[in-house]
């Protein structure tokens, strides 16, 4: 059976440390845009840690929520793309084909999660910072939309390696950079079609919900809600 890649984000584990953010930058050749451009709202973070305050001092409470491309089944970004740069693969990935992208930015508007980022200018690396670039990942040029790919290069490498060695993929061995870096283990990645996989079991959790579920985009990322503390019954 084909894979269906998905993720579970455990908000109870997330500490907001942003290890995932830098890991993603390093893995996916995401450019830093500099202070001036960042001030104009052009910073690119395929994964970000949203924080929401509730209440006021001294009862203020904070929740962190890592948000990345939700890899929706009914992705609103896909249909609106005039050139098929955005479409669904048979493994459930919400593909972004850079060479096909003409930069209408319609997908980014259609995406209610705002997880798509646009190369307003050509990315620049002041030499020799370009030596840090991952040769397995494309460098996106100006005018091209980009977003989280679930580290498709890792998926492809792992599948290719498994095929060469004539074995099945092992659950947990293949991880996107963010999940791999996360110290608290808040991000769990895997194959939703494998009922034994950790991600499939966790996504059944009663704590689970989808972000902006009411829009019906059917994301493949399940958020496990943060829990409160209750006094244990027995000592």
């Amino acid at each position, binding site marked *: 059976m084909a894979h269906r890649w998905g993720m579970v984000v455990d908000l109870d584990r997330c500490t907001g440390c942003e290890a995932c953010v830098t890991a993603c930058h390093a893995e996916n050749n995401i450019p830093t845009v500099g202070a001036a451009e960042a001030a104009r709202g052009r910073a690119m973070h395929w994964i970000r840690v949203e924080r929401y305050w509730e209440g006021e001092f001294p009862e203020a409470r904070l929740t962190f929520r890592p948000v990345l491309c939700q890899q929706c089944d009914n992705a609103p970004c896909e249909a609106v793309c005039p050139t098929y740069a955005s479409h669904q693969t048979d493994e459930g990935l919400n593909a972004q084909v850079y060479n096909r992208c003409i930069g209408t930015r319609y997908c980014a508007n259609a995406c209610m999660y705002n997880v798509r980022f646009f190369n307003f200018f050509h990315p620049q690396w002041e030499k020799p910072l370009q*030596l*840090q670039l991952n040769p397995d990942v494309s460098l996106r040029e100006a005018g091209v939309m980009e977003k989280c790919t679930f580290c498709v290069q890792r998926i492809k490498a792992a599948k290719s390696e498994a095929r060469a060695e004539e074995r099945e993929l092992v659950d947990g061995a293949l991880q996107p950079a963010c999940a791999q870096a996360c110290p608290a283990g808040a991000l769990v990645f895997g194959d939703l079609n494998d009922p034994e996989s950790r991600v499939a079991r966790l996504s059944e959790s009663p704590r689970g919900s989808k972000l902006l579920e009411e829009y019906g985009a059917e994301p493949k990322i399940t958020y496990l809600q943060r829990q409160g503390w209750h006094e244990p019954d027995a000592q």
Partner: protein
Amino acid sequence: MDRRRFLKVTAITGTSAALASCGHPENQIIRFVPEEELTPGIAVWKPSVCPLCSAGCGVIARVMDGDAEVFRNGQPGVTRMGLARKLEGDPAHAVSQGRLCARGQAALQVTYHPDRITTPLRRTGERGNGAFQEVSWDEALGELVSRIDELVGKGQASAIAFLGRPRRGQRQALVGEFLRALGAPAPVSFALFDDGVARHANELSFGRYQLPTLDLARTRYLINFGADFLGTWNSPVAQGVAYGRMRQGQPGVRAKFVQVEPRVSQTGASADEWVVVRPGTEGVVALGLAHVIMREGLRPATAAGRAGTLVDGWAGGLPQFTPQEVERRAGVTAERLERLAKEFVTYGPSLAVIGGAALAHANGVVQALAVNALNALVGSVDAPGGISFMPTEAPPARPARSLRDLVSASPQLLLVDEANPVFATPSAARVGEALRNIPFIASFGSFIDDTSVLADLILPDHSFLESWTESSPESGAMEAVSMTAPPAMRPLYATRAMPDVLLEVSRRLSRPLDPPLPWQTFEEVLQAPPAAAPAAPARAASASPVTWADAQFDGDAATYPFHLLPYASQALHDGSLAHLPWLQELPDPMTTAMWCSWVEINAHTARQLGIALGDMVEVSSAHGSVRAPAVISPGIGPEAVAMPVGQGHETFTRYASGRGANPIRVLAPVEEPATGTLAWSATRVRLARVGGPDGSLVLFAGATRERPDHHGRG
């Protein structure tokens, strides 16, 4: 017909393209024969150690071939070489366990930083103006050796000083050996957030000059007094891993996490309960908890053992720390304290942690002792779910000298290894001025920062990926961890590892060292390490109890109504990482700010002073003032303002120079008396709006864009 064929038909041939592409300098540059066997496009994982903080996480570097611009024999060219492309936690390392924090991930950029020093430099202009000229290693070493020779010849070897970052392991031991053989005083370690207070208190309470390992995974009740253990304190990766297990490690079991601090830190954000206290009264709360526990007879005073006897009045049940008294002093209601105390003792294993701002007071040691005693009282020392001390072959030793000792000794020659005291000390401490008066300074760091800009000679070190590395963390794992790793990649530039430079210097000295150092290279040092430096005599475990002292603050409350709470930036830590663009552009988890400094202000305060988001405010202490844009936060009390540390470098590469403001500079030079560490939370300030937004506040999202009525949607 495709585009290509179309053009062929129109008879535009490729000749012009070929001619044009010859014009690119890349195609004219010399290509050197690769020095290593590489399979193109295949990644190799090589172990290394993250050098950015003292946690000592083992990392693995993904090395792949690539074309690097290099110099060979003074000739510019390009060569194919193995290049580290990504860092990840080493799954086999007991501290990092395959995980890595944001800063560790960004450590990659240290190697490839465009402003890295590539060859030795000699100062040419005025000290501090940043003018250097490139010199050969031979020349540079010759100059350093002649300076040392001169001092040794005059019998002034004791005027040679070494200032480095707190490091452990063979590299540090080698420095000690070198200095001892030279007849110079012991090396001095300096870092802003160096936890000397916590170590000192642990030595008093438990006989270990060491930071504890927190067994969070098995804790069921955690009270944290200000330690940013999920962000920047101690061993954040290991603690993060354990925290994940504490939260959702076992089905149906979830520990309670109470954070006691005056401002919500990134760690505090994850707490189930935030207890606001006045700065410097964390220990009062701890002692209040102990009082309730003992009063209720839940634990006997003797359970705390030595840690308890160190606290004055412990045996009598701490009568002066009744809940009412705690409420008066710390601002925590008596009912809440009673409840917390009962919960803490009931739902064990429980654990209390103190660190960070709570210890950065003049009464830091007694605060730490209070928490240590509380831990001991509930049996959380060396117990599952409590604190323990990692058994290490070379236990951490109390430093023999401090920065203050170094400065007051007016050395003639200073060797600086990546420490940046000019940035990280209050201007009132006048460390920069003192350094300027040292006749000769040599720096080993890879970058020109606020301190090394004063150097006369810069002898650039390899990056950690290019040199042998070692990890001997003092905490983070239950078992002893020690590793060494060979270089992950060849050096990009004409740099040399600092230990190798010291060994080379020792060989070149006109009067040979006695005894001579027995190694030729750092690699040999790692294979046959020097004997551990003798620890400073363990402080006589004085059983004399320590009396509670209230935290003292610089500046009177009438003129300076606010406590200034500097805190370690999640991205830039103590500022030593401000040169890495990935970290500069990492949104702060609490404010989403990037590339800037800011002042966190309570909404009520902001309203009173007429300050809106992004307005420029001036924070003034009795010792100076800084300006930064305001961020209004519900996570800080009305009597405090907070500022992240990390920005405000005068000189520190193109990415950090002249960016933001440095709150450390305006602090009062108050020290914790027992350890001499800076009490960086002990300064009062006043606040004034000095202008509208100047555009320096760069937010990724959030604060400007959020309305109070839309919180927590989802």
